[in-house]
């Protein structure tokens, strides 16, 4: 009897230890270990430190593209999201068309399309208008003299990313707005506010608070997708890596470094988003 009890006790302490082990964030320990090994390489291995300094030349571009494109995407998304909840059929259909086209195309295809189809098409139209307006504006008006080359590939890449993410954010904003109860709009309208005033002062402040965490996650996704601009030759960190590899054939070293740089940024950002979510959860003033 006593023996079986002590065995039972031992297995229970054992299983406690096993439980404790299994609860450790092994994925994080693994990443930290990999990070330490890579850091050691950067400090001691000359090839790694050369690669790191090469790729770092693209970091400003990566961050710049991400920030600018994401800011534009938020503005586009808010406008299109408001269009998606509009009762005006024309506005609703325009917004829905935009969202559906964006969601149905691979982002890589969108980047090519914006860079090599929409931008030239825009200037073809602009030049035609300039041609028609020669009698008014003269032969040196900017609509006639400007051309596709005036828009850098960097700018086209950012426009494409902004358009693509604007479509996703539109649905995020729509969901946020629709999550606010109908009673809020009714109460605002019953006090004499117009639809626009009710949106501006009552619905949007609440909706935006709710969509901040998903927006944070989309910002991280944008950082990763900014690597796609390398297909246009924009020299972000991915493009710098590709250039280095094509000359040196140092595939593992280069792509280890590239992956290290992205992971460092995304993990820090996702910890930031998590911290922000917790903070919001704590001082949340009701729904």
């Amino acid at each position: 009897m006593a023996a079986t009890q002590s065995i039972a006790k031992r297995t229970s302490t054992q299983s406690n230890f096993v439980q404790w082990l299994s609860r450790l964030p092994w994925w994080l320990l693994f990443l930290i270990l990999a990070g330490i090994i890579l850091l050691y390489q950067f400090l001691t291995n000359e090839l790694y430190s050369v690669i790191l300094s090469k790729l770092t030349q693209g970091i400003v571009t990566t961050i710049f593209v991400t920030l600018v494109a994401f800011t534009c995407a938020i503005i586009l998304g808010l406008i299109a999201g408001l269009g998606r909840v509009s009762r005006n059929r024309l506005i609703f259909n325009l917004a829905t068309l935009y969202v559906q086209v964006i969601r149905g195309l691979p982002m890589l295809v969108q980047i090519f399309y914006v860079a090599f189809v929409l931008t030239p098409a825009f200037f073809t139209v602009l030049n035609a208008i300039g041609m028609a307006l020669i009698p008014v504006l003269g032969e040196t008006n900017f609509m006639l003299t400007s051309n596709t080359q005036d828009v850098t590939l960097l700018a086209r890449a950012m426009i494409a990313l902004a358009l693509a993410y604007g479509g996703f954010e539109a649905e995020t904003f729509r969901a946020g707005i629709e999550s606010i109860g109908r009673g809020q709009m009714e109460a605002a309208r019953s006090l004499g506010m117009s639809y626009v005033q009710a949106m501006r002062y009552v619905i949007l402040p609440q909706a935006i608070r709710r969509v901040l965490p998903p927006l944070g996650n989309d910002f991280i996704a944008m950082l990763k997708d900014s690597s796609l601009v390398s297909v246009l030759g924009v020299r972000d960190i991915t493009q710098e890596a590709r250039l280095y590899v094509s000359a040196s054939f140092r595939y593992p070293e280069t792509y280890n470094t590239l992956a290290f740089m992205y992971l460092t940024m995304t993990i820090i950002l996702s910890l930031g988003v998590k911290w922000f979510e917790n903070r919001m959860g704590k001082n949340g003033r009701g729904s």
Partner: protein
Amino acid sequence: MGAVPNAKQPMIVIKNLVKQFGRVDAVNGVSLRVEQGKVLVIIGPSGSGKSTVLRCINHLEVPTSGEIWVDGIHLTHNHKDINAIRAEVGMVFQQFNLFPHLTALDNIMLAQRIVRRRNEDEAGRMARKQLERVGIPEKADNYPGQLSGGQQQRVAIARALAMNPKVMLFDEPTSALDPEMIKEVLDVMLELAHEGMTMVVVTHEMGFARNAADEVIFMDKGVIVEQNSPEQFFSSPREERTQTFLNQILR
């Protein structure tokens, strides 16, 4: 007679109101009038169309047909007119519908600022005065989530009163409240009635109807079944359906 025709014009006139939701007739030909300073209580079983009538008065529901005048202004589909009338018609909802991202004070100030265009001082003073009136001046800086149901509903009443409305509409204001909080809200409403506010109240509170109403309407299946003084309505109703309804709830 008739020397000053506007002095005693009715506050609300409804003629032959019909509201259909799809194929369902929610309101099927209701006509009524509410004189200035009077309290009209509408009672009836759920689904009788009483809330819909109320919500048509400030166009939260667009009537299918029929005509409505508020303070002599004909309600049409013109958006400017509708916003103007809504500013004169205070509404209190079953679910309070306070703005959760604003403090009690800011809830009361918001529409004053952007609809009445009052400045911060003036709106703030009015807001505190109305919070005083509903008996919770100390809750000015609390968010709705920090208030009890009864307190939230009183803030909602203060929010509507701060617009200086000519009429107050109450849509089952105590139905979502815990029993011990019903009285504090009804007391505020009684006070308002005694001060001469024109009110239309949809409620199941028969005590309030008996004490505050100048007239009681009983609705069923989208029509007015009986319209009577509160004394007669509760002691000797004319209609058999009214009697049946009263027997069911006044047990």
